[in-house]
């Protein structure tokens, strides 16, 4: 299966971890769009380290990551398991990657944040903050989107809401989506490829 050249990401003999200490050795990967890449494994198995390394936020301990895009718009974006909300309104947070105003309004509509645009982002509920983090990333139109534990602490309704948003993104084959999660994740009509770390 071929994929757009600007978002090709391959790993070879990759070992990930922090401060020179290996957390996991990763099987060789050729990341493509159109599927959800699900990284699973117990606590401390290196899921976050893998996502951060692929996103370019952590250097590999060993091996190579071939990634042909930078950060942000048209690049790679990583969403933390506890996303950081910047001081100021939801609108200010959505404008982090400097999208046009109409793009901000459109993404707010899709993610159910239109009524909250003027609200202080740090006062949102946990579920709303997760939706905002996802919207803030999607509005930048990344080629690669890495989401760390997106369903942690969410109720069933919020989980369905975020999955619907992720589904729309994957259907359009934009971006390549990789999710780290303890629990199994399933999407209708979208294949999920599992990367199990031990």
């Amino acid at each position, binding site marked *: 299966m071929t994929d757009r050249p600007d978002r090709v990401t391959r790993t070879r003999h990759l070992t990930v971890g922090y401060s020179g200490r290996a957390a996991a050795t990763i099987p060789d990967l050729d990341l493509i769009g159109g599927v959800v890449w699900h990284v699973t494994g117990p606590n401390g198995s290196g899921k976050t380290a893998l996502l*951060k390394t692929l*996103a*370019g*936020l952590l250097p590999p301990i060993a091996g190579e990551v071939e990634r042909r895009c*930078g*950060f*942000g*718009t048209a*690049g*790679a*974006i*990583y969403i*933390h398991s*506890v*996303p*950081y909300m*910047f*001081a*100021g309104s939801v609108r200010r947070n959505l404008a*982090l*990657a400097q999208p046009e105003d109409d793009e901000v309004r459109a993404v707010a509509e899709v993610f159910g944040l239109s009524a909250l645009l003027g609200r202080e982002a740090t006062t949102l509920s946990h579920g709303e903050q997760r939706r905002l983090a996802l919207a*803030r*990333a999607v509005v*930048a139109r990344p080629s690669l989107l890495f989401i760390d534990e997106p369903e942690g602490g969410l109720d069933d309704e919020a989980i369905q809401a975020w999955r619907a948003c992720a589904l729309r993104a994957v259907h359009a084959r934009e971006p390549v989506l990789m999710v780290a999660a303890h629990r199994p994740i399933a999407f209708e009509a979208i294949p999920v490829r599992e990367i199990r770390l031990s």
Partner: protein
Amino acid sequence: MLAEVGRALALIVRGDVEVWQIAGVSFTVSLTAVFTAVILGLPMAYVLAASGARRARVGMWLAHSLAALPTVVIGLTLYMLLSASGPLGWARLLYTRTAMAAAQFVLALPLVVAVVLGALRGLPPSAGEALVTHGVTRARHMGWLLWEVKSAVVSGTFLAFSRAFTELGAALIVGGNIRGATRTLTTYIALEYDRGDDARAIALGLILLAVALVTNSVMHVLVSER
């Protein structure tokens, strides 16, 4: 004592030219010093915070150490640098407001850096990483992070102003307490006290006290609103 305070209040209310001219010099010198310290101190704090944990720790230690320097030591050092036989004597800055502002800048800069750097180090790593991963440029990166610690920026600025505005040692040594030129509230209070003109000393002290109270109240309001 009460009579002296009454005379002092009369001097302030009547608009004694010399008293208000001296207050003007104090404000000019201190605001210049603090403005410069903030303009240079904010990027310095940001660069130190972004340069890794070890360098940030060293920067913090250095800023705290410099903030604790006695003002007379700073004044004496600047005096030796600026005196006719010193390495900067050619600039003829000794006994000028510029020299006083430079001394107060040395007092203010470490305070600004220490307070803002401490706050930046307190931010979770996810704040900086969120900016990087969303493709925020270096210049905007600094702006976003400083906005996150705006309370510390306000506190650092006001603390630096308080220290600069109320210091005596450095201003006296490099300013010389020259009437109409480098005479400030603190240097004049010391002079009037020596002369025994308590009313004038009290009047200037009241202005100094009012400025300190207003400054701290404004800082409190600004910080608690955030």
